[in-house]
Protein backbone atom coordinates (compact mmCIF):
# COMPACT_ATOMS: atom_id res chain seq x y z
CA UNK A 1 0.00 0.00 0.00
CA UNK A 2 2.78 2.39 0.98
CA UNK A 3 4.56 1.51 -2.22
CA UNK A 4 1.35 2.15 -4.19
CA UNK A 5 1.20 5.60 -2.62
CA UNK A 6 4.86 6.56 -2.68
CA UNK A 7 6.68 4.76 -5.47
CA UNK A 8 5.31 6.80 -8.42
CA UNK A 9 6.69 9.95 -6.82
CA UNK A 10 10.02 8.37 -5.91
CA UNK A 11 10.62 6.75 -9.26
CA UNK A 12 9.62 9.42 -11.75
CA UNK A 13 10.79 13.00 -11.98
CA UNK A 14 7.71 14.04 -13.96
CA UNK A 15 5.50 12.75 -11.12
CA UNK A 16 7.53 14.73 -8.58
CA UNK A 17 7.15 17.89 -10.63
CA UNK A 18 3.44 17.19 -11.10
CA UNK A 19 3.00 16.72 -7.36
CA UNK A 20 4.95 19.86 -6.51
CA UNK A 21 3.09 21.93 -9.11
CA UNK A 22 -0.38 20.74 -8.20
CA UNK A 23 0.21 21.07 -4.44
CA UNK A 24 1.55 24.63 -4.76
CA UNK A 25 -1.35 25.43 -7.07
CA UNK A 26 -3.78 23.95 -4.54
CA UNK A 27 -2.40 26.06 -1.70
CA UNK A 28 -2.65 29.20 -3.85
CA UNK A 29 -5.98 28.59 -5.64
CA UNK A 30 -8.12 27.36 -2.76
CA UNK A 31 -8.23 30.58 -0.64
CA UNK A 32 -8.98 32.61 -3.80
CA UNK A 33 -11.84 30.20 -4.47
CA UNK A 34 -13.14 30.70 -0.92
CA UNK A 35 -13.36 34.47 -1.45
CA UNK A 36 -14.98 33.97 -4.88
CA UNK A 37 -17.61 31.80 -3.21
CA UNK A 38 -18.17 34.22 -0.32
CA UNK A 39 -18.55 37.09 -2.78
CA UNK A 40 -21.19 35.01 -4.65
CA UNK A 41 -18.91 35.04 -7.67
CA UNK A 42 -18.37 31.28 -7.96
CA UNK A 43 -19.22 31.28 -11.66
CA UNK A 44 -16.91 34.23 -12.29
CA UNK A 45 -13.97 31.83 -12.01
CA UNK A 46 -15.50 29.73 -14.75
CA UNK A 47 -16.10 32.79 -16.91
CA UNK A 48 -12.55 34.01 -16.38
CA UNK A 49 -11.12 30.60 -17.21
CA UNK A 50 -12.81 30.88 -20.61
CA UNK A 51 -11.74 34.49 -20.92
CA UNK A 52 -8.01 33.73 -20.76
CA UNK A 53 -8.29 31.34 -23.72
CA UNK A 54 -7.39 33.79 -26.54
CA UNK A 55 -4.30 35.03 -24.71
CA UNK A 56 -3.07 31.53 -23.97
CA UNK A 57 -3.94 30.41 -27.51
CA UNK A 58 -2.11 33.35 -29.05
CA UNK A 59 0.98 32.59 -26.97
CA UNK A 60 0.74 28.94 -27.95
CA UNK A 61 0.28 29.65 -31.65
CA UNK A 62 3.12 32.16 -31.82
CA UNK A 63 5.66 30.46 -29.58
CA UNK A 64 4.47 26.86 -29.27
CA UNK A 65 4.30 25.11 -25.95
CA UNK A 66 6.24 27.79 -24.06
CA UNK A 67 4.98 28.59 -20.60
CA UNK A 68 5.95 32.26 -20.49
CA UNK A 69 4.23 33.52 -23.68
CA UNK A 70 1.10 31.51 -22.84
CA UNK A 71 1.09 32.81 -19.26
CA UNK A 72 1.63 36.42 -20.26
CA UNK A 73 -0.98 36.15 -23.03
CA UNK A 74 -3.54 34.63 -20.66
CA UNK A 75 -2.75 37.18 -17.99
CA UNK A 76 -3.09 40.20 -20.30
CA UNK A 77 -6.39 39.04 -21.81
CA UNK A 78 -7.75 37.97 -18.42
CA UNK A 79 -6.94 41.36 -16.93
CA UNK A 80 -8.50 43.15 -19.90
CA UNK A 81 -11.72 41.18 -19.40
CA UNK A 82 -11.67 41.82 -15.63
CA UNK A 83 -10.97 45.53 -16.14
CA UNK A 84 -13.55 45.93 -18.91
CA UNK A 85 -16.35 44.19 -17.03
CA UNK A 86 -15.39 45.97 -13.80
CA UNK A 87 -15.47 49.40 -15.45
CA UNK A 88 -18.84 48.76 -17.10
CA UNK A 89 -20.39 47.58 -13.83
CA UNK A 90 -18.92 50.43 -11.74
CA UNK A 91 -19.94 53.24 -14.09
CA UNK A 92 -23.22 52.00 -15.55
CA UNK A 93 -26.43 50.41 -14.30
CA UNK A 94 -25.28 46.97 -15.45
CA UNK A 95 -24.34 44.47 -12.74
CA UNK A 96 -21.01 42.70 -12.90
CA UNK A 97 -22.46 39.26 -13.73
CA UNK A 98 -23.91 40.59 -16.98
CA UNK A 99 -20.86 42.62 -18.02
CA UNK A 100 -18.56 39.72 -17.13
CA UNK A 101 -20.70 37.37 -19.24
CA UNK A 102 -20.51 39.77 -22.19
CA UNK A 103 -16.74 40.25 -22.00
CA UNK A 104 -15.87 36.60 -21.44
CA UNK A 105 -18.09 35.47 -24.33
CA UNK A 106 -16.38 37.94 -26.68
CA UNK A 107 -13.02 36.72 -25.42
CA UNK A 108 -13.94 33.05 -25.76
CA UNK A 109 -15.15 33.57 -29.34
CA UNK A 110 -11.88 35.31 -30.22
CA UNK A 111 -9.94 32.45 -28.63
CA UNK A 112 -11.75 29.73 -30.56
CA UNK A 113 -11.40 31.75 -33.79
CA UNK A 114 -7.66 32.10 -33.19
CA UNK A 115 -7.19 28.41 -32.58
CA UNK A 116 -9.30 27.36 -35.56
CA UNK A 117 -7.58 29.92 -37.79
CA UNK A 118 -4.02 28.91 -37.09
CA UNK A 119 -4.05 25.78 -34.98
CA UNK A 120 -5.44 22.27 -35.01
CA UNK A 121 -7.82 20.40 -32.75
CA UNK A 122 -4.78 18.91 -30.97
CA UNK A 123 -3.61 22.47 -30.09
CA UNK A 124 -7.05 23.33 -28.82
CA UNK A 125 -7.15 20.19 -26.69
CA UNK A 126 -3.83 21.13 -25.13
CA UNK A 127 -4.88 24.67 -24.29
CA UNK A 128 -8.23 23.50 -22.97
CA UNK A 129 -7.01 20.56 -20.91
CA UNK A 130 -3.27 21.05 -20.27
CA UNK A 131 -1.14 18.34 -18.75
CA UNK A 132 0.11 18.29 -15.21
CA UNK A 133 2.54 15.53 -16.17
CA UNK A 134 4.29 17.84 -18.63
CA UNK A 135 5.17 20.57 -16.14
CA UNK A 136 8.73 21.74 -16.67
CA UNK A 137 10.85 23.72 -14.23
CA UNK A 138 9.89 27.00 -15.86
CA UNK A 139 6.19 26.23 -15.35
CA UNK A 140 6.85 25.26 -11.73
CA UNK A 141 8.66 28.56 -11.21
CA UNK A 142 5.67 30.48 -12.57
CA UNK A 143 3.27 28.54 -10.34
CA UNK A 144 5.45 29.12 -7.27
CA UNK A 145 5.75 32.83 -8.07
CA UNK A 146 1.98 33.13 -8.44
CA UNK A 147 1.44 31.32 -5.13
CA UNK A 148 3.83 33.66 -3.30
CA UNK A 149 2.20 36.74 -4.88
CA UNK A 150 -1.26 35.41 -3.96
CA UNK A 151 -0.31 34.86 -0.33
CA UNK A 152 1.29 38.28 0.02
CA UNK A 153 -1.71 39.99 -1.57
CA UNK A 154 -4.23 38.03 0.49
CA UNK A 155 -2.27 38.78 3.67
CA UNK A 156 -2.09 42.50 2.95
CA UNK A 157 -5.67 42.94 1.74
CA UNK A 158 -7.36 40.32 3.92
CA UNK A 159 -9.24 42.90 5.99
CA UNK A 160 -10.43 44.80 2.92
CA UNK A 161 -11.59 41.63 1.18
CA UNK A 162 -13.51 40.49 4.25
CA UNK A 163 -15.06 43.95 4.74
CA UNK A 164 -16.00 44.17 1.03
CA UNK A 165 -17.73 40.78 1.26
CA UNK A 166 -19.38 41.36 4.63
CA UNK A 167 -20.64 44.95 4.33
CA UNK A 168 -19.66 46.73 1.09
CA UNK A 169 -21.78 49.81 1.84
CA UNK A 170 -20.00 50.28 5.17
CA UNK A 171 -16.62 49.98 3.48
CA UNK A 172 -17.64 52.59 0.91
CA UNK A 173 -18.64 54.96 3.71
CA UNK A 174 -15.26 54.73 5.47
CA UNK A 175 -12.73 54.06 2.71
CA UNK A 176 -12.07 54.10 -1.00
CA UNK A 177 -10.22 50.81 -0.82
CA UNK A 178 -13.25 48.73 -1.96
CA UNK A 179 -12.78 49.31 -5.70
CA UNK A 180 -9.01 48.70 -5.79
CA UNK A 181 -9.37 45.66 -3.50
CA UNK A 182 -12.01 44.21 -5.81
CA UNK A 183 -9.81 44.68 -8.86
CA UNK A 184 -6.77 43.27 -7.08
CA UNK A 185 -8.85 40.26 -6.18
CA UNK A 186 -9.83 39.77 -9.84
CA UNK A 187 -6.12 39.98 -10.70
CA UNK A 188 -5.49 37.16 -8.21
CA UNK A 189 -8.27 35.10 -9.82
CA UNK A 190 -6.73 35.58 -13.27
CA UNK A 191 -3.20 34.89 -11.99
CA UNK A 192 -4.23 31.62 -10.39
CA UNK A 193 -6.23 30.50 -13.41
CA UNK A 194 -3.26 31.29 -15.63
CA UNK A 195 -1.00 29.41 -13.20
CA UNK A 196 -3.34 26.45 -13.41
CA UNK A 197 -3.96 26.19 -17.12
CA UNK A 198 -0.56 24.70 -17.95
CA UNK A 199 -1.25 21.90 -15.49
CA UNK A 200 -4.99 21.48 -15.80
CA UNK A 201 -5.95 23.45 -18.91
CA UNK A 202 -8.10 26.57 -19.06
CA UNK A 203 -11.32 24.67 -18.49
CA UNK A 204 -10.30 22.62 -15.48
CA UNK A 205 -8.03 25.10 -13.68
CA UNK A 206 -11.12 26.65 -12.15
CA UNK A 207 -12.01 23.25 -10.67
CA UNK A 208 -9.13 23.28 -8.22
CA UNK A 209 -10.19 26.79 -7.25
CA UNK A 210 -13.91 26.27 -6.74
CA UNK A 211 -14.59 22.65 -5.77
CA UNK A 212 -12.48 22.61 -2.57
CA UNK A 213 -13.79 26.07 -1.66
CA UNK A 214 -17.41 25.04 -2.17
CA UNK A 215 -16.80 21.81 -0.22
CA UNK A 216 -15.23 23.67 2.71
CA UNK A 217 -18.42 25.68 3.30
CA UNK A 218 -20.13 22.50 4.55
CA UNK A 219 -17.60 22.14 7.36
CA UNK A 220 -17.00 25.55 8.90
CA UNK A 221 -18.38 29.02 9.58
CA UNK A 222 -15.09 30.86 9.86
CA UNK A 223 -13.25 32.44 6.93
CA UNK A 224 -9.74 31.39 8.01
CA UNK A 225 -10.89 27.83 8.72
CA UNK A 226 -12.66 27.74 5.33
CA UNK A 227 -9.40 28.66 3.60
CA UNK A 228 -7.44 25.99 5.51
CA UNK A 229 -10.05 23.30 4.86
CA UNK A 230 -10.20 24.24 1.17
CA UNK A 231 -6.40 24.02 0.92
CA UNK A 232 -6.44 20.60 2.62
CA UNK A 233 -9.12 19.30 0.24
CA UNK A 234 -7.28 20.72 -2.80
CA UNK A 235 -3.95 19.19 -1.75
CA UNK A 236 -5.56 15.82 -1.00
CA UNK A 237 -7.37 15.93 -4.36
CA UNK A 238 -4.14 16.71 -6.20
CA UNK A 239 -2.29 13.87 -4.53
CA UNK A 240 -5.11 11.33 -4.96
CA UNK A 241 -5.82 12.48 -8.52
CA UNK A 242 -2.19 12.03 -9.54
CA UNK A 243 -2.06 8.55 -8.03
CA UNK A 244 -5.32 7.64 -9.74
CA UNK A 245 -4.00 8.98 -13.00
CA UNK A 246 -0.76 7.00 -12.64
CA UNK A 247 -2.25 3.68 -11.57
CA UNK A 248 -5.43 3.72 -13.67
CA UNK A 249 -3.89 5.39 -16.73
CA UNK A 250 -6.33 8.28 -16.59
CA UNK A 251 -5.65 11.82 -17.82
CA UNK A 252 -4.23 13.68 -14.81
CA UNK A 253 -6.17 16.96 -14.89
CA UNK A 254 -9.66 15.42 -15.00
CA UNK A 255 -8.58 12.83 -12.39
CA UNK A 256 -7.60 15.60 -9.92
CA UNK A 257 -10.81 17.53 -10.52
CA UNK A 258 -12.92 14.36 -10.27
CA UNK A 259 -11.44 13.60 -6.84
CA UNK A 260 -12.17 17.20 -5.79
CA UNK A 261 -15.70 16.63 -7.09
CA UNK A 262 -16.05 13.53 -4.94
CA UNK A 263 -14.80 15.54 -1.95
CA UNK A 264 -17.47 18.15 -2.72
CA UNK A 265 -20.26 15.54 -2.98
CA UNK A 266 -19.13 13.90 0.25
CA UNK A 267 -19.01 17.25 2.05
CA UNK A 268 -22.40 18.29 0.68
CA UNK A 269 -23.91 15.07 2.02
CA UNK A 270 -22.05 14.45 5.25
CA UNK A 271 -20.55 17.83 6.20
CA UNK A 272 -21.39 19.47 9.53
CA UNK A 273 -23.59 21.90 7.58
CA UNK A 274 -24.45 19.49 4.76
CA UNK A 275 -27.65 17.91 3.48
CA UNK A 276 -27.94 15.13 6.05
CA UNK A 277 -27.18 17.40 9.00
CA UNK A 278 -29.88 19.80 7.79
CA UNK A 279 -32.45 17.18 6.81
CA UNK A 280 -32.21 14.80 9.75
CA UNK A 281 -34.10 15.96 12.82
CA UNK A 282 -31.77 16.62 15.71
CA UNK A 283 -32.50 14.41 18.71
CA UNK A 284 -31.02 16.83 21.19
CA UNK A 285 -31.08 20.57 21.63
CA UNK A 286 -29.50 22.98 24.04
CA UNK A 287 -31.67 24.63 26.65
CA UNK A 288 -30.43 28.14 25.85
Amino acid at each position, binding site marked *: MVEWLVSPFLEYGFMQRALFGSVVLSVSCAPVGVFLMLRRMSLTGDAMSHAILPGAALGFLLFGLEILPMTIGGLVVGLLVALGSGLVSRFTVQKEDASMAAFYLISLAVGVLLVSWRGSSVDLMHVLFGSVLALNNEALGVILGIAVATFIALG*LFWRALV*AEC*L*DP*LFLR*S*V*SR*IGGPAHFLFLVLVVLNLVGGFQALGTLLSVGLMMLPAAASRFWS*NDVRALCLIAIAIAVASSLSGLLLSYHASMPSGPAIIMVAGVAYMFSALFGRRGVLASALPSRRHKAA
Partner: protein
Amino acid sequence: MNDTCLEFRNLTLGYDGHAAVHHLNGAVERGSLTAVLGANGSGKSTLMKGIAGILKPLGGGCVSSARRLAYLPQLSELDRSFPARVVDLVSLGFWQQRGLFGRVTRDDKGRLSGCLDAVGLSGFEARPLDSLSGGQMQRALFARTMLQDADLILLDEPFNAVDDETMRDLLAVVAQWAGEGRTVFCVLHDHALARAHFPQALLMARKQVAWGRTEEVMTSDNLSRARSFQEAWDDTAGWCEEPRGLQRHLHGDGAGPDASVRKAAAHG
Protein backbone atom coordinates in the same frame (compact mmCIF):
# COMPACT_ATOMS: atom_id res chain seq x y z
CA MET B 1 -14.62 78.96 16.89
CA ASN B 2 -16.48 77.26 14.03
CA ASP B 3 -19.60 75.63 15.46
CA THR B 4 -20.86 74.27 12.14
CA CYS B 5 -20.32 70.58 11.59
CA LEU B 6 -22.08 70.21 8.27
CA GLU B 7 -23.27 72.68 5.67
CA PHE B 8 -25.53 72.14 2.67
CA ARG B 9 -24.92 74.55 -0.19
CA ASN B 10 -27.80 74.36 -2.60
CA LEU B 11 -27.44 70.60 -2.45
CA THR B 12 -29.43 68.66 -5.04
CA LEU B 13 -29.32 64.87 -5.02
CA GLY B 14 -31.20 62.41 -7.16
CA TYR B 15 -31.28 59.54 -9.55
CA ASP B 16 -31.26 59.51 -13.36
CA GLY B 17 -31.34 63.29 -13.38
CA HIS B 18 -34.52 63.49 -11.24
CA ALA B 19 -34.05 65.45 -8.04
CA ALA B 20 -34.91 63.60 -4.83
CA VAL B 21 -33.43 66.31 -2.58
CA HIS B 22 -33.87 69.70 -4.20
CA HIS B 23 -31.82 72.82 -3.43
CA LEU B 24 -31.15 72.15 0.23
CA ASN B 25 -29.39 74.93 2.11
CA GLY B 26 -28.46 75.16 5.73
CA ALA B 27 -26.01 74.28 8.42
CA VAL B 28 -25.93 71.67 11.14
CA GLU B 29 -24.60 72.85 14.45
CA ARG B 30 -21.80 70.85 16.03
CA GLY B 31 -23.07 68.66 18.84
CA SER B 32 -26.71 68.96 17.74
CA LEU B 33 -29.22 66.13 17.70
CA THR B 34 -31.40 66.43 14.60
CA ALA B 35 -34.32 64.26 13.54
CA VAL B 36 -34.83 64.09 9.77
CA LEU B 37 -38.53 63.62 9.13
CA GLY B 38 -40.80 63.19 6.13
CA ALA B 39 -42.99 60.72 4.30
CA ASN B 40 -41.72 57.78 2.32
CA GLY B 41 -39.92 58.98 -0.79
CA SER B 42 -39.31 62.44 0.64
CA GLY B 43 -35.53 62.21 0.16
CA LYS B 44 -34.37 61.45 3.71
CA SER B 45 -32.27 58.38 2.90
CA THR B 46 -31.00 60.03 -0.28
CA LEU B 47 -29.80 62.96 1.84
CA MET B 48 -27.95 60.55 4.15
CA LYS B 49 -26.24 58.89 1.18
CA GLY B 50 -25.26 62.30 -0.14
CA ILE B 51 -23.73 63.34 3.19
CA ALA B 52 -21.90 60.01 3.47
CA GLY B 53 -20.44 60.58 0.00
CA ILE B 54 -22.03 57.46 -1.45
CA LEU B 55 -24.26 59.45 -3.83
CA LYS B 56 -22.75 62.25 -5.88
CA PRO B 57 -24.75 65.51 -5.99
CA LEU B 58 -26.60 66.53 -9.14
CA GLY B 59 -25.87 70.10 -8.07
CA GLY B 60 -24.47 72.13 -5.21
CA GLY B 61 -22.55 70.46 -2.46
CA CYS B 62 -22.23 69.45 1.11
CA VAL B 63 -19.28 70.55 3.21
CA SER B 64 -18.40 68.78 6.41
CA SER B 65 -15.83 69.85 8.96
CA ALA B 66 -16.21 66.55 10.79
CA ARG B 67 -13.00 64.77 11.59
CA ARG B 68 -14.70 61.43 11.13
CA LEU B 69 -18.11 60.34 9.85
CA ALA B 70 -20.13 57.23 10.71
CA TYR B 71 -23.11 56.13 8.62
CA LEU B 72 -25.62 53.49 9.60
CA PRO B 73 -27.82 52.95 6.53
CA GLN B 74 -31.47 51.94 6.50
CA LEU B 75 -30.95 49.09 4.08
CA SER B 76 -27.62 47.64 4.94
CA GLU B 77 -25.84 45.67 2.25
CA LEU B 78 -24.58 43.48 5.06
CA ASP B 79 -24.37 39.82 4.05
CA ARG B 80 -25.73 38.00 7.07
CA SER B 81 -24.84 34.62 5.61
CA PHE B 82 -21.15 35.61 5.60
CA PRO B 83 -19.19 33.36 7.97
CA ALA B 84 -18.34 35.99 10.54
CA ARG B 85 -18.83 36.50 14.26
CA VAL B 86 -20.24 39.52 16.04
CA VAL B 87 -16.72 40.60 17.01
CA ASP B 88 -15.66 40.54 13.32
CA LEU B 89 -18.54 42.81 12.33
CA VAL B 90 -18.16 45.23 15.22
CA SER B 91 -14.38 45.53 14.88
CA LEU B 92 -14.90 46.94 11.37
CA GLY B 93 -15.60 50.10 13.36
CA PHE B 94 -11.84 50.48 13.88
CA TRP B 95 -11.30 50.93 10.15
CA GLN B 96 -10.95 54.72 10.13
CA GLN B 97 -8.54 54.60 13.08
CA ARG B 98 -6.45 51.58 12.16
CA GLY B 99 -6.77 51.58 8.36
CA LEU B 100 -6.01 48.62 6.15
CA PHE B 101 -2.82 47.48 7.81
CA GLY B 102 -3.03 48.68 11.44
CA ARG B 103 -3.40 46.04 14.10
CA VAL B 104 -6.18 46.06 16.66
CA THR B 105 -4.51 46.74 20.02
CA ARG B 106 -5.34 45.46 23.49
CA ASP B 107 -6.89 48.86 24.28
CA ASP B 108 -9.04 48.52 21.18
CA LYS B 109 -10.28 45.15 22.38
CA GLY B 110 -11.19 46.77 25.69
CA ARG B 111 -13.12 49.50 23.87
CA LEU B 112 -14.89 46.88 21.77
CA SER B 113 -16.00 45.02 24.89
CA GLY B 114 -17.19 48.30 26.39
CA CYS B 115 -19.27 49.11 23.29
CA LEU B 116 -20.83 45.63 23.22
CA ASP B 117 -21.65 46.05 26.89
CA ALA B 118 -23.23 49.45 26.24
CA VAL B 119 -25.64 47.98 23.66
CA GLY B 120 -26.41 44.91 25.79
CA LEU B 121 -24.42 42.41 23.73
CA SER B 122 -21.86 41.31 26.29
CA GLY B 123 -21.04 37.65 25.75
CA PHE B 124 -22.13 37.79 22.09
CA GLU B 125 -18.59 38.21 20.75
CA ALA B 126 -18.30 34.75 19.22
CA ARG B 127 -21.91 34.47 18.03
CA PRO B 128 -22.25 33.89 14.25
CA LEU B 129 -24.04 36.73 12.49
CA ASP B 130 -26.66 34.44 11.00
CA SER B 131 -27.82 33.52 14.51
CA LEU B 132 -28.66 37.11 15.53
CA SER B 133 -32.20 38.47 15.68
CA GLY B 134 -33.01 41.73 13.90
CA GLY B 135 -32.78 43.69 17.17
CA GLN B 136 -29.48 42.07 18.14
CA MET B 137 -28.06 42.88 14.71
CA GLN B 138 -29.09 46.51 15.12
CA ARG B 139 -27.41 46.58 18.55
CA ALA B 140 -24.23 45.16 16.99
CA LEU B 141 -24.33 47.82 14.26
CA PHE B 142 -24.71 50.50 16.94
CA ALA B 143 -21.69 49.06 18.74
CA ARG B 144 -19.74 49.30 15.48
CA THR B 145 -20.89 52.90 15.04
CA MET B 146 -19.74 53.67 18.61
CA LEU B 147 -16.31 52.21 17.86
CA GLN B 148 -15.94 54.49 14.84
CA ASP B 149 -15.53 57.36 17.30
CA ALA B 150 -17.06 59.72 14.75
CA ASP B 151 -18.01 63.32 15.44
CA LEU B 152 -20.75 63.24 12.78
CA ILE B 153 -23.10 60.26 13.02
CA LEU B 154 -25.76 59.54 10.39
CA LEU B 155 -28.48 57.10 11.38
CA ASP B 156 -31.12 56.07 8.84
CA GLU B 157 -34.24 54.73 10.57
CA PRO B 158 -32.18 52.97 13.24
CA PHE B 159 -35.14 51.94 15.38
CA ASN B 160 -37.10 50.05 12.73
CA ALA B 161 -38.15 46.56 13.77
CA VAL B 162 -36.61 46.75 17.23
CA ASP B 163 -38.48 46.12 20.47
CA ASP B 164 -39.07 48.73 23.18
CA GLU B 165 -36.15 47.62 25.33
CA THR B 166 -33.72 47.66 22.41
CA MET B 167 -34.98 51.09 21.39
CA ARG B 168 -34.51 52.37 24.94
CA ASP B 169 -30.93 51.06 25.02
CA LEU B 170 -30.11 52.49 21.60
CA LEU B 171 -31.66 55.87 22.47
CA ALA B 172 -29.41 55.91 25.55
CA VAL B 173 -26.44 55.47 23.22
CA VAL B 174 -27.68 58.36 21.06
CA ALA B 175 -28.05 60.53 24.18
CA GLN B 176 -24.53 59.57 25.22
CA TRP B 177 -23.23 60.67 21.81
CA ALA B 178 -24.98 64.01 22.20
CA GLY B 179 -23.49 64.35 25.69
CA GLU B 180 -20.03 63.79 24.22
CA GLY B 181 -20.57 66.64 21.76
CA ARG B 182 -21.03 64.46 18.69
CA THR B 183 -23.41 65.59 15.97
CA VAL B 184 -26.23 63.15 15.25
CA PHE B 185 -28.41 63.33 12.14
CA CYS B 186 -31.11 60.69 12.41
CA VAL B 187 -33.91 59.73 9.99
CA LEU B 188 -37.08 58.88 11.90
CA HIS B 189 -40.72 58.10 11.19
CA ASP B 190 -41.90 58.18 14.77
CA HIS B 191 -42.95 61.77 15.49
CA ALA B 192 -43.33 61.16 19.23
CA LEU B 193 -39.78 59.85 19.37
CA ALA B 194 -38.51 62.91 17.52
CA ARG B 195 -40.34 65.27 19.88
CA ALA B 196 -39.09 63.44 22.97
CA HIS B 197 -35.44 62.91 22.11
CA PHE B 198 -34.35 65.23 19.29
CA PRO B 199 -34.18 68.99 19.97
CA GLN B 200 -33.72 69.82 16.27
CA ALA B 201 -35.73 68.59 13.29
CA LEU B 202 -35.52 68.82 9.50
CA LEU B 203 -38.83 68.15 7.77
CA MET B 204 -38.50 67.13 4.13
CA ALA B 205 -40.71 66.63 1.11
CA ARG B 206 -38.03 66.21 -1.59
CA LYS B 207 -36.99 69.67 -0.48
CA GLN B 208 -36.81 71.37 2.84
CA VAL B 209 -40.24 72.09 4.37
CA ALA B 210 -38.94 73.34 7.70
CA TRP B 211 -35.76 73.13 9.75
CA GLY B 212 -35.17 74.29 13.28
CA ARG B 213 -36.33 73.55 16.81
CA THR B 214 -38.41 70.41 16.76
CA GLU B 215 -41.54 71.92 18.29
CA GLU B 216 -41.46 74.76 15.76
CA VAL B 217 -40.91 72.43 12.84
CA MET B 218 -43.54 69.85 13.72
CA THR B 219 -46.55 72.10 13.47
CA SER B 220 -49.72 70.74 11.88
CA ASP B 221 -49.31 73.22 9.04
CA ASN B 222 -45.76 72.04 8.26
CA LEU B 223 -46.68 68.38 8.59
CA SER B 224 -49.62 68.88 6.27
CA ARG B 225 -47.35 70.56 3.71
CA ALA B 226 -44.85 67.72 4.03
CA ARG B 227 -47.54 65.15 3.33
CA SER B 228 -48.84 66.81 0.19
CA PHE B 229 -45.79 66.46 -2.02
CA GLN B 230 -45.56 64.58 -5.27
CA GLU B 231 -43.79 61.31 -4.48
CA ALA B 232 -43.41 59.97 -8.02
CA TRP B 233 -41.01 61.34 -10.58
CA ASP B 234 -42.52 63.55 -13.20
CA ASP B 235 -41.14 62.28 -16.49
CA THR B 236 -42.43 65.38 -18.26
CA ALA B 237 -40.71 67.79 -15.85
CA GLY B 238 -38.50 70.40 -17.44
CA TRP B 239 -34.87 70.96 -16.57
CA CYS B 240 -34.30 72.99 -13.45
CA GLU B 241 -32.28 76.04 -14.45
CA GLU B 242 -31.37 77.31 -10.99
CA PRO B 243 -28.55 74.98 -9.96
CA ARG B 244 -26.43 75.48 -13.04
CA GLY B 245 -25.24 78.94 -12.25
CA LEU B 246 -24.84 78.21 -8.59
CA GLN B 247 -22.98 75.01 -9.26
CA ARG B 248 -20.57 76.93 -11.46
CA HIS B 249 -20.03 79.27 -8.56
CA LEU B 250 -19.52 76.49 -6.08
CA HIS B 251 -16.86 74.84 -8.15
CA GLY B 252 -13.36 76.25 -8.23
CA ASP B 253 -12.20 77.50 -4.84
CA GLY B 254 -15.54 76.69 -3.29
CA ALA B 255 -15.56 80.00 -1.46
CA GLY B 256 -17.03 82.41 -3.97
CA PRO B 257 -20.74 82.25 -3.29
CA ASP B 258 -20.47 81.26 0.36
CA ALA B 259 -21.97 84.43 1.70
CA SER B 260 -25.02 84.27 -0.52
CA VAL B 261 -25.47 80.58 0.04
CA ARG B 262 -25.22 80.91 3.78
CA LYS B 263 -27.71 83.75 3.76
CA ALA B 264 -30.05 81.44 1.94
CA ALA B 265 -29.80 78.92 4.74
CA ALA B 266 -33.33 78.58 5.88
CA HIS B 267 -33.04 76.64 9.08
CA GLY B 268 -33.18 77.89 12.62
